[in-house]
């Protein structure tokens, strides 16, 4: 409905009738329906955040009550693969930022590629996460392995479900972008995706590193 506002830097005295690629300063000011969708999405993500805050609260309470964390008989949590996962998610968020910008500037192919890349990196995340689960399961860490196992699996599985939903959504948004449609959807999915990424960073820091 509304066009993105594109501001151009106009050096004095130069002919600016032909925009120079890359010098466009781009500001997106959504109006009307799009802004309504943004407000709704922001509130939705706020609600979602509260759900995860409930989970983190549970984690904090359970952990402070535990005499020893991690417990002695728990297998050590890997750090490498989850670290790679963190890089994957951060990279996919970066791809997402570029993809959204491309979509809004009308560059459908780049938009499609960016969204597809973000989705692919999300799928990589899921694959690596499955490896982590597999190895820990074989090493004896189960959901029933006390609160340590409970927290680990509850958090990582629940987060992975969100990643899976995101991968699906981004793939769908990618194909729509290739056709030139769904510009607003791309931006909304990008917010969701960044949210999932931020969650992962918090999870990684508090569950794997701490």
């Amino acid at each position: 409905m509304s066009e993105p506002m594109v501001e151009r830097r106009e050096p004095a005295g130069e002919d600016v009738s032909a925009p120079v690629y890359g010098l466009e300063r781009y500001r997106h000011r959504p109006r009307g329906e799009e802004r309504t969708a943004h407000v709704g999405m922001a509130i939705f993500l706020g609600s979602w955040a509260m759900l995860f805050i409930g989970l983190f609260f549970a984690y904090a309470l359970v952990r402070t009550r535990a005499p020893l964390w991690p417990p002695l008989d728990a297998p050590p949590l890997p750090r490498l693969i989850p670290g790679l996962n963190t890089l994957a998610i951060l990279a996919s968020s970066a791809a997402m930022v570029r993809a959204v910008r491309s979509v809004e500037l009308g560059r459908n192919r780049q938009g499609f590629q960016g969204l597809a890349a973000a989705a692919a990196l999300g799928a990589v995340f899921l694959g690596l996460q499955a490896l982590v689960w597999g190895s820990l399961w074989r090493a004896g860490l189960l959901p029933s392995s006390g609160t340590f196992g409970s927290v680990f699996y509850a958090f990582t599985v629940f987060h992975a479900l969100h990643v899976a939903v995101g991968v699906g959504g981004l793939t769908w948004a990618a194909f729509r972008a290739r056709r030139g449609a769904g510009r607003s959807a791309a931006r909304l999915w990008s917010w969701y995706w960044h949210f999932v990424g931020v969650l992962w960073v918090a999870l990684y820091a508090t569950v794997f590193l701490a």
Partner: protein
Amino acid sequence: MINMQAEMEAAQPIHAPPTSFWRKYVFSIDHKVIAKQFLWAGLLFLFVGGVLAMLIRWQWAFPYREVPLLGGLLEGGRIGPATYQQIFTTHGLIMIFFAVTPVLIGTFGNLLIPLMIGARDMAFPKLNMYSFWTFVLSQLLVLASFLAPIGTAGAGWTSYAPLSTNVGTPGMGQTLVVAAIFVTGVASTMGAVNYITTVIRLRAPGMTWMRLPLTVWGLWLTAILNALFVPVLGSAALLLLLDRSFGTHFFMPAAVAARGGGDPILWQHLFWIFGHPEVYIMILPTFGILGDVLSFFARKPHHWYRGTVWALIVITVLSAMVYGHHMFVTGMSPLLGEGFMLFTLLISIPSMIVVLNWILTVWNGSIRFDTPMLFALGTVFLFGIGGLTGLYLGDISMDLYLHDTLFVVGHFHFTMAAGSLVGAFTGLYFWFPKMFGKRLDERLGKAHFWFTFLGLLLVFGGQLLAGYAGQQRRLFDPFQNPVYQGLAGLNRWTSFFAFALFAGQFFFIVNFFRTVFSKRIQPAGQNPWHVTTLEWTDSASPPPFHNFDRIPLVVRGPHEFSNPEVQRLTGRDFAGQAEVLPGQGEPAVSAGRA
């Protein structure tokens, strides 16, 4: 302002209404239809919850005796201890989540928010439809739980762990109920997002925040609490489901499960972080509705509108900070307990402001006693009692004695049953003509009122007395302790009053069904109550699919009554929110939307 009106018109184009049966009545995206759907679903479960209450009262009045009518469903025709705990559990859950919430928030939120702010529908109509059907799914899960082999949930509506884990209450029934709680939370959150966004984005030009009807304020603040705190319940329900079905140990300590280490108090924290805002979620719409209805029927502007708005906002914020008063006897640190007590006492201040503003609104008015007004006044009176009894419970010393007694049950029934439910009836009688085009019968309405008002007063006043004497809640047989045998008479009498209260609801059932389905009742007209808000002044009864032929341009607040100037110019004692008075012309370009 005129430009904004054109903009809103463009943003909310008039669509043709749906024609197929499915799109019109089942999978409708029209907020008015969805409101009615919530109403039917909620009233159905209100009835079920009421029947469960009657079973509880039967047990108190005639313990160990065969139950008439429903005895066939029970083992041996009697209520046993295991069944009893299922009855009071499902009574609470159903009344809170599946009856009052859909009627008060689902119906009025959906019906009134777009109409009162001058919009054609919600911000996200399809999401609205999904939220209703998700809600129906949660109701089905609750019904399914009754069919489980050893019965439905039995750990109280509060589902404290470890009683609500497999250790305390094994079986599918409890699991299904926990799942139902999660799913209904999803539905609530979807609805909340819709309500919040709609009020922020789709207010008609000139409808500033301080010109909103108080009903919209109440529903909007409720939606904010819903959006923030229902997900916390979701997290608790999720963890409990994991504990029950996947062997995790969030709530099971080592004393109880071999590899435990979880914390039962964790459940209480998560539950009450949701649970206390939940009771405010249930009362804020009533606060809003009462503010408007009292002004309408006293024909007088609402007293200190701004004061009430700010008080409602303060209540909303504080509601999250008082939850620990449900946990005073769990052994929390004294400092924490005293902090919660402080905030609990503080929240009484804005509540008092709201109630006193109601009284000063009708003071010096010209009061008409139509049925909606009777219910509104009854709510003021009964909620007043409920609120005052909260003072006892928010104080740690007194709570040491009163916790888990019937005093608590009396308190929350006065505030929730008498407050929220009677407030819902106020809204139903008032907005019935808007929804269905006809007025409910006044005589049946008044009979309904007196049975309900006196019934609630006597039943729950009796509970306050019994709790004061120390009789505890959730007891299958309260008279095991011979001391309380002295209260047997009180318990029996309050049960009789409860049966009368339930019977009195049949006035409403008859009235409701007859009026909805009868072809012979006169149409009510567009604005039968002669009031000021947009849904009455600018839209037919019932409204067309697109609500407003033209998006209204709002020029004044919602309570313009008995203004001598208006009387002189129009001959009426009220002026609609978008009404241009003769001799005033089109409003100039004003300061725009706040």
